[in-house]
C-alpha cells in the first residue's frame, strides 16, 4: 500500500559545494590563461 507526500517545501535550495567553487575558479583561470596566451601569439601563430 502506498501513500503520497503532500508536505510543503520548507528547505531552501542547498548551497553550492566547495569543490565546485574551487574547481570553477581553477577552470576559469586556466581558460583565461589559454585565451590570453593565444591572443598574445605565444602558441597559435598561423591559425
Amino acid at each position, binding site marked *: 500500500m502506498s501513500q*503520497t*507526500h503532500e508536505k510543503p517545501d520548507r528547505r531552501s535550495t542547498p548551497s*553550492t559545494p566547495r*569543490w565546485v567553487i574551487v*574547481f570553477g575558479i581553477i577552470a576559469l583561470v586556466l581558460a583565461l590563461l589559454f585565451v590570453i596566451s593565444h591572443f598574445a601569439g*605565444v*602558441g597559435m*601563430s*598561423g*591559425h
Partner: protein
Amino acid sequence: MTMTPGLRKFALTAHVTSSIGWFGAVAAFLALAISGLTSQDAQMVRAAYLAMELTTRFVIVPLALVSLLSGVVSSLGTTWGLFRYYWVLLKLLITIFATIILLVHTQPIDLLAGVAAKTAVFGADLRQMRILMVVASGAALVVLLVLTALSVYEPRGVTPYGWRKQHQQRKVSPVVDAET
C-alpha cells in the same frame, strides 16, 4: 526518460571505450609531437607530423565526438540526468570545451602535415606551432584525466535544478521509495 538496461549498458560501453580510447590516442599524439619537435632525424620528423594528422582525423576527433554523444545519451537515459549533479554538468562542459579546442587545433596539425608531406625542412616560423602541439596534447591529457576522475569519484553535490526535480519526484512518489 529512462533507457532499458540493455541500451543503457550499450551506451555506457560506448562511452567508457571512446573516453579511454581518446585518452590513449592523445597520449600517442603527445609522443609523436615530442618526437617531431626534438628528433634530429628529418625523416622521423616528417613521419611524426604525417602520423599526427592521420591520428587526429581518424582516431582522436571521432572518439571525442562519440565520447560526447554517448555521455549525453547515458546521462539523459538514466536517473543521473544532464543538469542534476554538478559532476555530470562539469563533465559535459569540459568535454564540450575540449572537443571545440580539439577541432580548432586540427588546422595547425593539417598545416604541419602539409609541410611534412613536401619537405623535411621546417622553418623557424613553424617552431611555435610545433611547441604548441606538445603543450596542447599535454594539457589535453590532464583535462581527460580530470574527466576520468570525476566519473570515478562522482563528487557529491546537487544543482538547484536537480534539487527541484528530486522534490517534485518525492511529492508524487510513495513513501516507501527510500532510494531517492
